[in-house]
């Protein structure tokens, strides 16, 4: 079976090379059939990669330990869902998933765009082919998932921390995000290569960018929830380089999604937009490099990891190529439109962009500095939480405020008197929130207070936006409130979907501020019958239990929970001992309060032979708003992504006439 997997990857390599070389020639020489043929090669590369992926999945499901990758990441008693997720549990499978997602995206994006912009797609095909060549080469020549060995009787099993439901979905979403950013990059480069710097590349990639950005956002939240449940240190984000690797392209893509609106509305920021798209894609490559090369744990991983130098070369190539293309096309990217006022919506979006990019680059510097330092000076440096927290506050709080200001300012210019009128209510609500928080004793954290006041400001502007829009529509049409509300959102999906996403970010900010600025912690060793008290809760250690799970022995400390005079039931925390993997994992106990969004979070740090357990207990106010934010984020993204028939008709009319003219030009 490994032969089929290897053959399929070789076929993908041939197809990608053809898409790169044949597609490039077709675009340069203006050959229609060759361009169509190269495009077909891109479609077929998805088919051959899918065959390779199916072979690997079958290998895992059938416990085919003659495949070294399967033997290294699975075992016979591993539950089925983890046998499947073991596919991306190691380097080779992750690269194959990258390639599978890339060829799927390439197929769909090119399929939907080629009728509207043949000349542009002719140049996009070789760019996507080139990216696919890079990854396929790694899989064929450097790090193959189809290497075979003399099959052992049992595999090594899967790392216990990966045996978690969130780890089944988290990497898939993360890769859907990382790889999805290749689509806007390829179309931007296609536009620059062809010299067609009109809006078609933006129109063709608008939805793909939002899909990738949404997937990356969901992937990070799933990863945060996994860390919260599985890693067992009481937090959900530790500014770990691999976590930062996903955050950076998301921030760059967020900046792009805002700045591209300025190009669409005003025709401005063309250079900035192609730069942001390139930055987002290169950061997604850098993220994969950090995750897969092992460079983060040790600079010497270059000698340990087979893909590190290749990946670094690939990143350098992408950066040089994108920079050269932007430089070459600068004259065509320049526009005559200028920023007319520093108090306008485009100016607010520009400030938002500068803050997002500044945050992104400071995180990049903090992530890359230990690597650079060790490589250049031979010194090991750790960039810790204070560095990142400082910049998050410096750039994050103004960003939060701008989320409320930006959408309510007029394009081009706005008067201060007009602004005062529009923002009077939200500012009043923010002030009242701050005063109320101080009155209720929540003034201990100044930053928390500022964050909550800004959050109240943004939520007020969003609520007012929906209320004003619905009211104006009712005045115009006489519709009922639900109908007017539904049609308001339905006819302005990007705008109102965007507001819902903003509401999600506010929920996230409230959750992060609440759980970090106002949390409580207590720790201590308990014997059965003894208690701990924290933030109004009393936990009494009742007993230790032991049971056999599907592939691990599960030891649990059972604690009775009381608050005030109320019995809140029990919470269990403990350890899982995995026999095949010879590893022990922490299994935390979490009791969530759905009304307040608060979590009681219990870690059984040490389970002693004498029956005592060392516990660490956190109370995290509002932490569940972070996960709720994820659901609201998805809702907002879906509203934004939902096809708008009127917009589609308008674009179809515009591009149909352009297409007719192009066909006429080609046949004359």
């Amino acid at each position, binding site marked *: 079976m490994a032969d*089929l997997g290897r*053959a399929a990857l070789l*076929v993908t390599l041939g197809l990608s090379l*053809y898409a790169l070389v044949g597609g490039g020639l077709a675009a340069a020489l203006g050959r229609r*059939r060759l361009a169509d043929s190269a495009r077909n090669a891109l479609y077929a590369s998805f088919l051959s990669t899918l065959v390779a992926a199916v072979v690997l999945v079958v290998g895992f499901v059938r416990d085919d330990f003659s495949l070294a990758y399967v033997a290294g990441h699975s075992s016979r008693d591993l539950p089925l869902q983890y046998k499947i997720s073991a596919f991306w549990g190691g380097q080779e499978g992750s690269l194959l998933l990258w390639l599978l997602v890339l060829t799927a995206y390439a197929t769909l994006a090119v399929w939907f765009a080629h009728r509207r912009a043949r000349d542009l797609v002719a140049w996009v095909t070789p760019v996507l082919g080139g990216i696919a060549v890079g990854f396929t080469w790694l899989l064929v020549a450097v790090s193959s998932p189809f290497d075979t060995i003399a099959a052992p009787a049992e595999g090594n099993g899967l790392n216990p921390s990966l045996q978690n439901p969130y780890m089944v979905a988290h990497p898939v979403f993360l890769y859907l995000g990382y790889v999805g950013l290749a689509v806007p990059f390829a179309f931007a480069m296609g536009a620059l290569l062809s010299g067609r710097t009109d809006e078609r590349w933006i129109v063709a990639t608008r939805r793909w960018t939002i899909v990738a950005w949404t997937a990356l956002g969901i992937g990070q939240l799933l990863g945060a929830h996994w860390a919260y449940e599985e890693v067992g240190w009481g937090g959900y984000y530790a500014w770990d380089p691999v976590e930062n690797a996903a955050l950076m392209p998301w921030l760059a893509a967020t900046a792009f999604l805002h700045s591209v609106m300025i190009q*669409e509305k005003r025709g401005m920021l063309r250079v900035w937009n192609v730069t942001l798209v390139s930055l987002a894609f290169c950061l997604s490559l850098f993220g994969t490099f950090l995750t897969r090369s092992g460079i983060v744990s040790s600079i010497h991983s270059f000698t340990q990891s087979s893909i590190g130098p290749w990946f670094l070369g690939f990143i350098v190539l992408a950066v040089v190529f994108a920079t050269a293309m932007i430089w070459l096309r600068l004259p065509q990217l320049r526009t005559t439109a200028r920023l007319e006022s520093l108090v306008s919506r485009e100016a607010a979006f520009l400030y938002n962009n500068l803050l997002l990019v500044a945050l992104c680059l400071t995180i990049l510097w903090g992530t890359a500095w230990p690597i650079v330092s060790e490589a250049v000076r031979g010194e090991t440096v750790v960039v810790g939480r204070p560095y990142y927290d400082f910049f998050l506050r410096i750039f994050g709080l103004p960003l939060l405020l701008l989320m409320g200001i930006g959408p309510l300012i007029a394009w*081009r210019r706005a008067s201060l008197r007009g602004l005062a009128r529009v923002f009077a209510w939200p500012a009043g609500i923010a002030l009242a929130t701050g005063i109320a928080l101080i009155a209720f004793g929540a003034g201990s954290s100044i930053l928390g207070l500022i964050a909550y006041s800004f959050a109240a400001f943004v939520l007020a502007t969003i609520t007012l936006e929906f209320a004003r*829009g619905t009211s104006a529509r009712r005045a115009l049409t006489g519709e009922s409130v639900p109908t007017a509300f539904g049609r308001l959102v339905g006819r302005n999906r990007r705008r109102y979907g965007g507001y819902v996403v903003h509401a999600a970010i506010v929920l996230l900010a409230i959750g992060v501020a609440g759980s970090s600025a106002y949390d409580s912690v207590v720790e201590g060793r308990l014997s059965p019958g003894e208690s701990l008290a924290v933030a109004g809760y009393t936990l009494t250690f009742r007993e230790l239990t032991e049971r056999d799970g599907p592939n691990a022995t599960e030891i649990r400390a059972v604690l009775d929970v009381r608050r005030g005079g109320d019995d809140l039931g029990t919470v269990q925390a403990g350890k899982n001992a995995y026999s095949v993997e010879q590893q022990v994992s922490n299994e935390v106990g979490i009791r969530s309060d759905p009304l307040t969004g608060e979590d009681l979070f219990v870690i059984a740090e040490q389970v002693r032979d004498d029956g005592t357990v060392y516990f660490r207990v956190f109370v995290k106010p509002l932490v569940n708003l972070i996960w709720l934010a994820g659901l609201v984020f998805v809702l907002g993204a879906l509203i934004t992504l939902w096809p708008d028939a009127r917009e589609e008709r308008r674009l179809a009319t515009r591009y149909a006439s352009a297409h007719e003219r192009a066909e006429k030009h*080609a046949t004359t």
Partner: protein
Amino acid sequence: LTVWLLLGAALAVVVVVVVALPFLREPAPYSDALDELDPAGRELLEAEEARDRALAALKELEADHRGGRISDEDYRAVVGALRRDAGEALRAIDRLQEGTPVGGAKSG
């Protein structure tokens, strides 16, 4: 040779056919030139984009003004420029559709 290798070879044959399809379908086409916009077509497309931009901005401004998000003062300051932009884009489209380059029309 294993069955799996044969399956791999079959996959290779299928994709070669898929890739060769445009040449098999049209062995001797009337024209093999890629559909590309000529300079005038590109200019027209950009003028149409400018028109859509201006009209969308006008529509949004009207809706914002009606909804009370934009004051009368701000509305008056912006609406004139937007109408001018839309007018210019429409005139440019008319000229291009009549076959007169925008630059030529301006200088003439």
